[in-house]
């Protein structure tokens, strides 16, 4: 039985660019912006980084394939650099690779950098993409909101939730995230919205309206990881450690075999169970201080609360409306605004979530600082509700 990653690796430094419509920035500019914050926070020289991983989700629309964009963008000293792509979990995957490299002893200090330049398409929303030559022959020509709207239909079908109640819960999710984003100077969207605005916004993919959708943003985020021992030797006093890093990829059973009803994301549940076991968490609703989940759409966040076992099955609508996941609730979710308002530069997103957890756990989150968080959970979900990759990362104070 593997011992897991708990407390073997700590975050030495983290950085994040301003997210948004960065019309004047190349991907390298965004990377540099995040990296300068990160390396200063880590208190090391660039030459001390021994390996790096780059995550981009849709490289065809920005930098092209391969890892040279990161290596050249930061003028890294000819170290091994690898590009990672795994849908919306790409950022967490880069972090996982760097963490595992350090945990294995293959290197002492590693960098994970995620970025995306999405605003060069000429239209709103995510770029139109091929899903592969053969898949394109029969997959519906669906948008991202169209994919995740399936969850709403499945959820209604299973629990008999009315369209109105579901929509109100979805609206609450977005109103909450907008309120949070208002306190985040790096967020793409920094303005509050009302329930009425969310409920009455133009429909994008039934029942997902405009304010149920996250921002499509340019941005970069990164983390430098090392061992607790090296961090201490470098003078780091407060250590924020990786407690769990789990990934689950669909094998086609949800979409191709009976059992899955469209009301939940199977892979998130599998990844969450493994992550809680790895981190030693037995009562997630009591032990997790805060979450950054993949709220690509409001309904995704709502369903994810059940998939992470923070809400009972069928209980997310009530929990959401009761404010359990609000900034002043029991388990604040998206305290930085989430994908919804911080924005969603795909390859950067997983690392942006870890950046926020790191800030919160270090007490450096400024106006949005939560009182005494100890365990933070991040979650990514990429693909379709019925076939996807899902990641769950848990970080917290070292040694607890």
């Amino acid at each position, binding site marked *: 039985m593997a011992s897991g990653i708990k407390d073997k690796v700590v975050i030495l430094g983290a950085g994040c660019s301003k997210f948004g419509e960065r019309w004047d920035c190349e991907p390298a500019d965004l990377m540099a912006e995040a990296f300068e914050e990160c390396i200063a926070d880590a208190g090391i020289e660039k030459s001390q980084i021994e390996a790096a991983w780059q995550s981009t989700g849709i490289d065809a629309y920005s930098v092209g394939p391969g890892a040279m964009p990161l290596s050249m963008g930061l003028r890294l000293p000819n170290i091994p650099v690898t590009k990672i792509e795994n849908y919306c979990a790409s950022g967490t995957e880069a972090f996982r690779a760097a963490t595992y490299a350090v945990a294995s002893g293959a290197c002492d200090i590693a960098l994970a950098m995620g970025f995306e330049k999405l605003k060069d398409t000429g239209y709103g929303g995510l770029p139109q993409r091929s899903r592969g030559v053969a898949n394109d022959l029969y997959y519906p*020509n669906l948008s991202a*909101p169209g994919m995740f709207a*399936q969850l709403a*239909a499945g959820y209604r079908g299973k629990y008999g939730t009315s369209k109105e109640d579901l929509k109100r819960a979805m609206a609450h999710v977005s109103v909450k995230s907008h309120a949070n984003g208002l306190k985040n100077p790096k967020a793409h969207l920094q303005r509050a919205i009302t329930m009425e605005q969310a409920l009455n916004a133009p429909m994008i*993919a*039934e029942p997902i309206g405009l304010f149920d959708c996250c921002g499509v943003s340019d941005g970069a985020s990164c983390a430098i990881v090392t061992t607790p021992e090296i961090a201490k030797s470098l003078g780091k006093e407060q250590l924020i450690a990786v407690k769990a890093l789990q990934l689950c990829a669909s094998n*086609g059973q949800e979409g191709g075999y*009976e059992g899955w009803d469209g009301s939940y994301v199977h892979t998130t549940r599998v990844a969450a169970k493994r992550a809680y076991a790895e981190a030693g968490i037995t009562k997630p609703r009591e032990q997790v201080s805060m979450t950054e989940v993949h709220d690509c759409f409001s309904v995704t966040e709502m369903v994810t609360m059940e998939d992470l076992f923070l809400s009972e099955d069928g209980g997310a609508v009530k929990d959401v409306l009761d404010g359990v996941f609000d900034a002043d609730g029991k388990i604040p979710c998206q305290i930085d605004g989430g994908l919804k308002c911080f924005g969603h530069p795909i390859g950067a997103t997983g690392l942006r979530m870890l950046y926020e957890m790191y800030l919160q756990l270090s007490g450096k989150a400024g106006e949005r600082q939560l009182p005494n968080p100890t365990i933070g959970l991040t979650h990514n979900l990429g693909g379709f509700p019925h076939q996807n990759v899902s990641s769950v990362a848990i970080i917290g104070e070292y040694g607890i």
Partner: protein
Amino acid sequence: MVGITAYGAYLPRMRLQKQVIADANAWFDPGLKGLAKGEKAICNWDEDTITMAVEAYTDCLGNAPGQAPAALLLASTTLPFADRQNSVVVAEALNLDTSDLRTMDITCSQRAATSGLLSALDIAAAGKEAVLVASEHRKAKCASREEMLYGDGAAAIAVGGENVIAELIASQSQAVDFIDHYRGEGQDFDYGWEERWVRDEGYMKIVPNAVNALLSKSGVSAGDIAHFILPTEQGRVPPMVAKKLGIKGEAVADNLLQSVGITGAAHVMLLLAHRLEQAAPGDLVLVAGFGQGCDVLLFKVTDAISHQRAGKGVSGHLSNGRPETNYNKYQSFNNLLEKELGKRSEVNKQGYLSAMYRARGLTNSFLGGKCTACDTVQMPKHKYCVNPECGAYDTQVDHPMAGASGTIATWTADTLTFDYNPPAYFGMVTFEGGGRIMMDMSEVDAETFDTGSKVSMHFRLKQIDDQAGFRKYFWKAIQV
């Protein structure tokens, strides 16, 4: 005995109200007002000659896989491909046994379907079964008479030597280079001549000439004809021709001008299918196909005719329409406008023919896989069984799903993604008997459609590449 053994039809559900055409164009041509009566059947954006042909065959003979007629003939002047045999696409979509199947596209005349039927009957005379499908989806210029008169539709006629419901008595074909209209190579639209000349020199002379030749050699009296089928967009012509020939007025088939429109090369078979629905044993049926001459076929209805049909037939399709009052939508679906489709429509539409060839079991024939170890049905077919209790390798055999009944498990109406008819409906369909797939939906009635809705599978257009002249097909779920 050789003759017709089965018949079926298909009409698109959209019925454009002709008044909206007149409302838009009468400022330019007030004469259009006189034609603005009733409605016409028009293809949805994802329907064409091929998809309608598949539906018409299914209406005629069902879509049970492995049917093995000796020949499948497709008659049309609006075949999507000038060089890719369209009837083969239809055959694969129908899951016919193609191991010993003659396929043929018959085109270039409004007489194509009757000529095709004559060829099919020749095959029947040789002791085999053949099916003729006639299907048409013509374009017409904005503010033209044709725009008022043309409709879209398809019909299928099966022929053979057993269980004949209408026996072939005689036939006659005459060829005359009479150009009432033509459509030149590379042209989208018909170019026609004065109606009065077409009527007087064409229909009134060429048709009687051919019919009289047939009647005289078969010894049948015109007055004994019970059904006279003469497709034409000139509504007054069939009674005039009938009168000249001595055919009774009540025998003249309604041309469905105000309910369907003239469905071009398919129309003669559509009218034949319609009349067969009403025919009684012993009835004589005279079918005339007009175009660069005339084909005439005389049938006698047998005792085997039954009006208990599985399919909808012409009557069923006539009553299955949905009024459409958006003229712009009609023009858009027929690519008659320089329309802003948005940047999301600018995707790579490359055909990737080798990949298409590998995938054609799924894309053309809607075949899934059935595991021979555990009987689990799955879509698409896969090397490993999807059942987690099984997971067997290389155990799946082709499993036809085109006739499967489905239930909507999840869905959405997507307004962001590109669709010719937004919003795009798609979602997870779960099939009775196993299998499920995320797929597109069509003909959605937003008022009644929801999770739990029952759906059937239909061969439809998936993507059109106007630049390359290519189109891709796949199956869509349509609410039952």
